């Protein structure tokens, strides 16, 4: 087990810089998830930690030591790949044991270690099968097993769940989280799925265009997003973003004052973010009035798309008594739940 820290980490391919100075400290035993849209640099960062990509600038430290110039094998890390990277011609036993090939321990100990890992992953009965005879979830477990068998200081996961179907993904998500609680090793997990990030992480690192947008616990990034990007990226459905203006009376959106506070100069523009959960459909007077344009029933709740003064917002309505389609409805929001962003998209606190 070890800490991990990135200091001004830069990656450039020729003259194109793709990572622009990443700073991050990961505590020992922490589960950190890197999340962001494709091309944001999250996988590149992970591969630099692994030593599969050269570091163009800055430092990667594992357990306090700079590892920039160490070979992957000398960094005491293990990685699980998106396509699992388990060898089709080797049995599960050989695949898991592959990570122990260079370990200086007696053969009997290696066998014991493989059996232990297989037991933790409930793969004991499959040890002599070939990967082709396994399901997607089982292959995933073999890949995790191969990483675990070496007892590394840091586990690196590169979008390991994206090849699984939705149901299996939820199950494996839970298994990885349980595994972390059990073995307590530091984990860096890369995903583009914000639900995975929210459900698994101790801390989430949200990236975009080679920059870290925000680092925080799932609750922090959800309730106090640092900027409009984070606000919209985290949470499903996405946060509603409404164009408003600061007037002497308060914040005005779609012709109505929805909060009696003036967090900036009177007359300046402000983006008001409201989570669909915080926007309730009410039959009588509320903050906004509009017409229901689309309904998306989800069972327990129904998402209502409401057109308010030319801007479409999503609100959560009760699943049993949703408003009728094309009905004129009112939407209320507690002013305390508003997220305000300035013209650059930075949160106004």
């Amino acid at each position, binding site marked *: 087990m070890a800490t991990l820290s990135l200091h001004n980490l830069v990656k450039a391919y020729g003259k194109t810089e793709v990572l622009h100075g990443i700073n991050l400290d990961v505590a020992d035993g922490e589960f950190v998830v890197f999340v962001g849209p494709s091309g944001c640099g999250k996988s590149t960062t992970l591969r630099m930690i*692994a*030593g*599969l990509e050269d570091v163009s600038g800055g430092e990667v430290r594992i357990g306090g030591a700079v590892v920039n110039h160490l070979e992957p094998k000398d960094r005491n890390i293990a*990685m699980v*790949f998106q396509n699992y*990277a388990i060898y*089709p011609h080797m049995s599960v036993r050989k695949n898991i044991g*592959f990570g122990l090939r260079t370990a200086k321990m007696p053969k009997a100990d290696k066998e014991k270690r493989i059996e232990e890992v297989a037991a933790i992953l409930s793969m004991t009965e499959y040890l002599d099968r070939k990967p082709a005879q396994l399901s997607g979830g089982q292959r995933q477990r073999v890949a995790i097993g*191969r990483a675990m068998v070496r007892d590394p200081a840091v586990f690196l996961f590169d979008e390991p769940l994206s090849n699984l179907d939705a149901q299996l993904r939820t199950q494996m998500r839970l298994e990885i989280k349980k595994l972390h609680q059990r073995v307590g090793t530091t984990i860096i997990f890369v995903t583009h799925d914000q639900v995975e990030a929210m459900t698994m992480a101790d801390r989430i690192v949200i990236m975009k265009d080679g920059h870290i947008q925000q680092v925080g616990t799932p609750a922090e990034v959800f309730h106090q997003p640092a900027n409009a990007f984070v606000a919209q990226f985290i949470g499903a459905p996405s946060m509603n973003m409404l164009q408003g203006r600061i007037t002497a009376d308060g914040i005005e959106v779609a012709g109505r004052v929805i909060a009696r506070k003036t967090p900036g100069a009177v007359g300046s523009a402000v983006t008001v973010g409201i989570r669909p959960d915080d926007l309730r459909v009410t039959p009588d007077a509320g903050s906004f009035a509009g017409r229901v344009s689309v309904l998306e029933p989800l069972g327990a709740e129904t998402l209502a798309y409401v057109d308010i003064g030319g801007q479409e917002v999503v609100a959560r309505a009760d699943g049993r008594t949703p408003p009728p389609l094309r009905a004129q409805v009112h939407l209320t929001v507690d002013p305390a739940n508003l997220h305000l962003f300035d013209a650059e998209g930075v949160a106004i606190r």
Partner: protein
Amino acid sequence: MKRYRNLSIRQKQVVWAWGFLALPILFYVVIRFYPTFNAIVLSFQSWNLLGPREWVGLENYVKLWHDPVFWKVFRNTFVYLILGTPISLVLSFVIAYQLDKTRLLHGTLRALYFLPFLTSTVAMAWVWRWFYQPVPIGLFNNFLASLGFAQVNFLNSTSNALPSILIPAIWAGLGFQIIIFMAGLRAIPTSYYEAARIDGVSGWTILWEITLPLLKPTIVFLVVFSSIGFLRIFDQVFNMTTNNPGGPLDSTKPLVLMIYQTAFSSFDMGYAAAQTVVLFAILLTVSLVQLRILREKP
């Protein structure tokens, strides 16, 4: 037409499939299966191409069994196979493996290796034949002489001639094998290598335990393909030894050349047919054995 319209979709597909297949099947029957069958029949007959065909039973095969030239040729053919296939495969794999890692001039190098494959065998054989000539004509001997070494009798020696012919034959096939190997190497996901790098296994282990096992389908294909090529070697030998094809003293003569001479110099068609049947049997056996050995369950 009405009958066609009443067919189910499946039946219509069958009709179309057979419609398209009819032509190649007809072609194969006329061009391949009939002559093959005819050759087998002919191997039990005596025929000089013009006169009547006479049944002679197993006489052609008995003659072949007692023909010392046949055994010499049989041995030569297998020397071409046993030396040619492994050498060309190892060479082409090593080149492909290194070329796969090369970024600089990658395309140019690949093209250079592929070039001999595009060249006419006859032209190539004659150029190599020139290389092998004695001083002052031959390139190799001129070079040796300039360094003060004794001349080497490449094509006129019974021991050197076969290897001398084998070298250009291997070289000619290399380009194709390299391309196939490179395609095989490219098909192996890079994450396999990255995972191995993280696990810290040696390059040697990666080669033997990851690369080669995963290349097995490619290797099977190339072994069979290249073996058939060496068992049927003809043009290189014929063109490099035109004064005395297969010489000196039959030391380079492969089975196909013997068949050619029996058929079109001696006009002993029945005997040639018997040799052809033997060649066919050898090709079939070697290919099947190789497929069997190399195709074992991964």
